[in-house]
């Protein structure tokens, strides 16, 4: 049983059982996609994607997901900073609440949002009384809120991890050189954090792009306002138009794959060393 082979050994054969299990796992994940691609009407794909309803859903998806990502960054960055840098009672609880949407079924989130922000909801009534906001339900703003609800945690955990890895001595050094808090934040903290922020923002955008449950439950399914690509796909599928559903699905898969491939170093297989400060740049 004593295996003394060094970890450097290049061709260590994995046990057969592990290989088989891994291949089955890939099959489970990939086969549905293969099935979809095999049924894809490639010849008419162009025209299908050019249809008004599809383009409209794509537009809503892009607007909603980008706005949700922006909300995640603007609100999530201060939150990540608080979680990473401050010690306070109940921090573990706050973090758990913040990350809850990652594990919660989105439909639960949608229902929760409905009871909080709906016309008779806790905050919804206040919004109406104080700001004259009639209702968020059925509006693009509502869809953005639903998408931000499920996607912000992805940004927060990525940014918090980045902040924790940051060498705070660099910030101290900047302050001894005469940099005030804002200058330190702007010229040292944020630039050093940039790779984490980019990864977190992209992840939360990707999550928002695929959002379905919370959106349809809270914001509803209104063409041009809240009907994003995932909602349009479900709609087409239920309405007996599988080819339209497939075409839009292929579009969504393509976009998502591009994002994940772009992120492969940042999140999926993060490098162990500090984010690129190394030999990538050459003297000018």
């Amino acid at each position, binding site marked *: 049983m004593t295996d003394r082979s060094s970890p450097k050994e290049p061709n260590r054969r994995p046990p057969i059982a592990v290989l088989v299990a891994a291949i089955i796992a890939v099959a489970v994940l990939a086969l549905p996609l293969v099935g979809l691609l095999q049924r894809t009407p490639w010849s008419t794909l162009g025209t299908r994607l050019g249809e008004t309803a599809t383009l409209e859903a794509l537009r809503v998806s892009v607007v909603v997901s980008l706005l949700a990502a922006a909300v995640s960054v603007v609100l999530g960055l201060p939150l990540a900073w608080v979680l990473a840098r401050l010690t306070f009672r109940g921090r573990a609880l706050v973090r758990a609440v913040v990350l809850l949407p990652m594990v919660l079924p989105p439909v639960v989130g949608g229902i929760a949002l409905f009871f909080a922000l709906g016309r008779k909801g806790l905050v919804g009534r206040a919004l109406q009384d104080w700001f004259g906001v009639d209702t968020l339900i059925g509006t693009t703003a509502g869809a953005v809120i639903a998408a931000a609800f499920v996607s912000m945690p992805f940004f927060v955990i990525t940014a918090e991890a980045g902040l924790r890895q940051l060498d705070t001595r660099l910030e101290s*050094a900047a*302050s001894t*050189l*005469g940099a005030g808090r804002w200058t330190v934040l702007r010229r040292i903290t944020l630039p050093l954090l940039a790779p984490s922020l980019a990864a977190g923002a992209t992840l939360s955008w990707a999550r928002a792009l695929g959002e379905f449950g919370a959106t349809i439950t809270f914001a509803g399914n209104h063409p041009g306002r809240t009907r994003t690509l995932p909602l349009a796909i479900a709609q087409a599928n239920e309405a007996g138009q599988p080819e339209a559903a497939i075409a839009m699905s292929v579009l969504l898969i393509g976009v998502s794959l591009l994002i994940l491939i772009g992120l492969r170093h940042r999140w999926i297989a993060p490098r162990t060393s500090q984010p690129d400060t190394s030999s990538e740049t050459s*003297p000018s």
Partner: protein
Amino acid sequence: MSIQAEIHAATGGFAIHAAFDAPTGSCTAIVGPNGAGKTTLVHALAGLIPLRQGKIVLAGQVVEDPAQGIQTPPDRRPIALHSQHNLLFPHLSVVDNVAFGPRCAGLAARPARQRAEEWLSRVGLADLAGLRPAQLSGGQAQRVGLARAAACQPAVLLLDESLASLDAETRTDVRHLLADIEATRVLITHDPVETRVLADQLLVMEKGEIVQTGTPEEVAGDPRTPWTAGLLDINLLTGTASGTQVALHSGVVLTTATPMTGPVLVTFSPAAVTLSTVEPHTSARNTWEAEVARIQPESDRVRVLLGAPVPCQAWVTPQAVGELALSAGSRCWAALKATELTVREA
């Protein structure tokens, strides 16, 4: 800018208690074993660690005083710090690192860059301006870090082992640079030569407290702790070399084994000096008649401080003091082998 400091501070359960004054433009060297609290002391001066008690006064202005509730943040203190870890900003080029301080002081991009380039050439690194910190060697990074702190043109410059990883040649250049800087300097060092050449005042720290203060000569002549003695037990003379001859300022010429030209530092151990009552006829290249300035018995040896014309120390046994009838004001002959002398560029 003068410094008056009384510092009671703590980091990670380790407390320091230290008080010292430094006049405007002076250089104070802090020496002490590792873990003595030297870095904690300069961090407290810089404002990176809050005082628990005490006061920091710069040029008559209270910068920090917990009793009055005054705590000026690091960026508002006229102090720049060069840390032993350099802490260069990895995302900025070398020149932008050095220009960081001037930019924070409100200088526009172009003049800030100009000043940074000036300082880079003063530390001999003008041609590395476009590199990233990750591309520098340890010694280069140290010089960039030093240039970055100096480019702030601070009234007080704190240097935490700023010359530690430099090779002998650049070390001399940088030492000259530090000697020329107008700022009031506080420097942590482990190098006896640096201490003797740069410092007007020496603070010896051990276990979080200052155990001895004085000029380097005073402390070297009467080290209060074994650690201090170990660090400073070295004779240092300055003179002008011409081949293997070094003319001291007193006019005495010493013979060395290393040919050099120009201003030099000559160092040798107190153990290398032998004393006798009559002019010795030995193989030693250097002999002179000396006046005994002071005699100081220590546990197992006697430290004899010689005055003109070659001020230095010699260690002898207690028996030798009796045999040679040494006492303050008496005269004796000193001998020193040329091969015992270390000569380096001043």
